[in-house]
């Protein structure tokens, strides 16, 4: 058994855990919020440790994920409010921020948030010309012109560019 003496005063709050980001920031999170992450839930089931170190999630991203978990663990909020929180949560975020978020949700196995963020990332790519996607995400086209033409020929139906956007 872990006692409060060994672990310091923070563990005195029985239903909380401390999560530490890769850059050392610590967040106090209610256990009911933490267990919405399948990975954290497993860790908490396996050991009694109240301090979880996440070696590949930075503090900004972790703060966002925790805000999400805490909101969704709040029984006082209606499903509608949670849904509008989700919308607000991803709106206006840069693709790069979304990318770290989606990676974090993948690591932490927060399925709902992973879907929400992936949906937002897909919305950014939706109806865009290939050239736009390459430019926006800095993807190097390493096809020869012949190889590219051949692939476009294979799925010719997907290349009607009339309704696509380039900005």
């Amino acid at each position, binding site marked *: 058994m872990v006692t409060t003496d060994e672990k310091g005063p923070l563990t005195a709050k029985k239903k909380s855990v401390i999560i530490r980001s*890769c850059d050392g920031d610590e967040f106090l999170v209610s256990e009911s919020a933490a267990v919405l992450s399948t990975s954290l839930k497993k860790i908490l089931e396996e050991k009694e440790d109240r301090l979880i170190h996440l*070696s*590949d*999630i*930075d503090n*900004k*991203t972790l703060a966002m994920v925790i805000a999400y978990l805490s909101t969704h663990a709040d029984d006082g909020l209606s499903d509608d409010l949670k849904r509008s929180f989700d919308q607000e949560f991803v709106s206006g975020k840069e*693709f*790069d921020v979304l*990318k*770290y978020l*989606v*990676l*974090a949700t*993948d690591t932490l196995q927060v399925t709902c948030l*992973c*879907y929400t963020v*992936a*949906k937002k*990332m*897909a*919305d950014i*790519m*939706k*109806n*865009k010309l*290939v050239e736009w*996607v*390459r430019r*926006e*995400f*800095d*993807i*190097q*086209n*390493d*096809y020869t012109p012949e190889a*590219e033409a051949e*692939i*476009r020929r*294979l*799925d010719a*139906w*997907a*290349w*009607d560019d009339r309704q696509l956007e380039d900005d």
Partner: protein
Amino acid sequence: MGSFENLNVDAISNLPADVINNILARLSLRDAVRTSVLSREWRYKWTFIPEIVFGYEFGRAFLRKHIERIIDQVLSRHQIASSILLFCLSWRNCICTKFMGTGGVPNRFPDSFSSLIVVDLSMYLDSIVEVASFLCLIRSSPKLQMLRVTLCVYRIDGAVTELLRAQETPDRYLNQLRRVEIEVYTYADPLKEFARYVLACAARLEEMVIYDPKPRFSRGSLLNLTNELNRLPRASPSADLLVIKQDELTQQC
């Protein structure tokens, strides 16, 4: 930023496969297929999307083309065709429109959907073109194992009932079909005729589940339907027939 810096070859290419799948699955099929030319690394990423949805956009683009060939092309390139292949075609826009105003709906397509395992769609029993197109679609899918169909009706059309009744049974199609789920908003004759057709043809059928989603039909009418369908000849004598309410379906799964 975080410690995923090694991923910054470009903004997205090196994301873990399941994350990429998650993103691609939320694009339209057309947008997902188009990612194959981004770079060589992206060549096959779309082929691992867990389910393929032939949606509205897809349908709009192919009214006058060989839609069955295109669908089969897409399906045959898809990597996980044997596991979960969903065919949520907004098919009213694809297949039905193709036949509107033409000489009529053929018995089956000249080319078959040889990779199609699961068909999942909704159908209005009011429209004879729609019902005929649906029959054409399932007969053109020789490997079809699972059929999930939602049957709706506004106004019963005797011609639809006649069309279904006139289907030759047993015919040589539907012989891989194992499971049929029919979500019903009507117990009218077209439903019974459709069930009769499937029961008479599907020689390997294991289970047919007819369920009431609301639920709004009485226990008695469910029983009557069960009794009526139980009297029909079956190509697969061991097939189970269940007529149930939605909540019972959940319990069963």
